């Protein structure tokens, strides 16, 4: 049976359908999860998609963090449930304290939408294991508040423990400290990434298919663990 990967829809989510499609193309079974329901429907992994949950009111991800579904996801993540937060999903993971740091207004103040080159730095996480360390990929990036910040001690800890999973190459689009595009938690089941791998899974509609390996990684990690 194919692993079941839940994709949460919050009010204001935009990329839930693309995330579900990426799961399907990777060979998994996408399962729709609803923000107001704490039932995770026995999924094996969860994607928090991009968008503007609750209109980005207060702070990006600040209100989504308290949605009923997040209580179950935080609990699950602490016992090993794989969770990938993309863009707004990354913001929600930071607000939930599943990942350290925070995402702040782009230093340019402009909303940035471009095909972004990244270097995959860490392949020990459940969402990056199908890459090789040092792989360079190009996937879309689109954010207004994508600047990753944390204090120096936290940044040193992330670097020291190999928890930076991807870094911006050629251009730092949003002022992220140390060019950080994505990080993982200590265990490697929770990953947050500002650019959008789910928009780069099919040659017809993406700049590349470089994003697909995020989704095959978790499916292979799950099958390997079963």
């Amino acid at each position, binding site marked *: 049976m194919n692993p079941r990967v839940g994709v949460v829809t919050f009010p204001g989510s935009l990329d839930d359908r693309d995330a579900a499609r990426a799961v399907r193309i990777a060979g998994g079974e996408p399962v729709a999860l609803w923000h107001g329901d704490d039932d995770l429907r026995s999924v094996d992994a969860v994607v928090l998609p991009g968008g503007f949950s609750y209109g980005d009111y*207060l*702070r990006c991800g*600040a209100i989504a963090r308290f949605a009923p579904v997040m209580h179950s996801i935080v609990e699950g993540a602490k016992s090993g449930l794989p969770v990938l937060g993309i863009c707004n999903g990354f913001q929600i993971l*930071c607000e939930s304290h599943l990942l350290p740091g925070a995402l*702040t*207004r782009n*230093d340019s*103040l402009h909303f940035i939408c471009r095909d972004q080159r990244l270097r995959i730095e860490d392949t020990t996480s459940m969402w990056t294991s199908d890459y090789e360390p040092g792989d360079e990929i190009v996937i879309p990036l689109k954010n207004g508040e994508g*600047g990753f910040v944390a*204090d120096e001690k936290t940044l040193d800890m992330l670097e020291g423990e190999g928890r930076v999973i991807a870094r911006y190459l050629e251009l730092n689009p949003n002022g992220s400290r140390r060019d950080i595009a994505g990080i993982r938690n200590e265990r490697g089941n929770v990953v947050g990434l500002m650019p959008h791998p789910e928009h780069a899974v099919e040659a017809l509609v993406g700049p590349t298919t470089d994003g697909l390996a995020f989704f095959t990684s978790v499916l292979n990690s799950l099958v390997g663990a079963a």
Partner: protein
Amino acid sequence: MARVVVDVMLKPEILDPQGRAVQGALGRLGLTGVSDVRQGKQFVIDIEGDLEGDRLALMHTLAEELLSNPVIEDYSMTVLEDAQ
């Protein structure tokens, strides 16, 4: 009736690009000598009855955990009793 005023500001070490843009605009509009601008948020919350005990403690908790993000922001809270 109590009125709670919560001010939320980015921590000093966090870059504030919006404040920087405002600083630039102030200078362009002729205001000389502006050395720094920080932009924050203010919440004005009216609450029925007196705010004390557990409810006051919860208000503090929510100011820290909901209204601000302690990773990047500081908050200050003032309670005005008998607000009209």
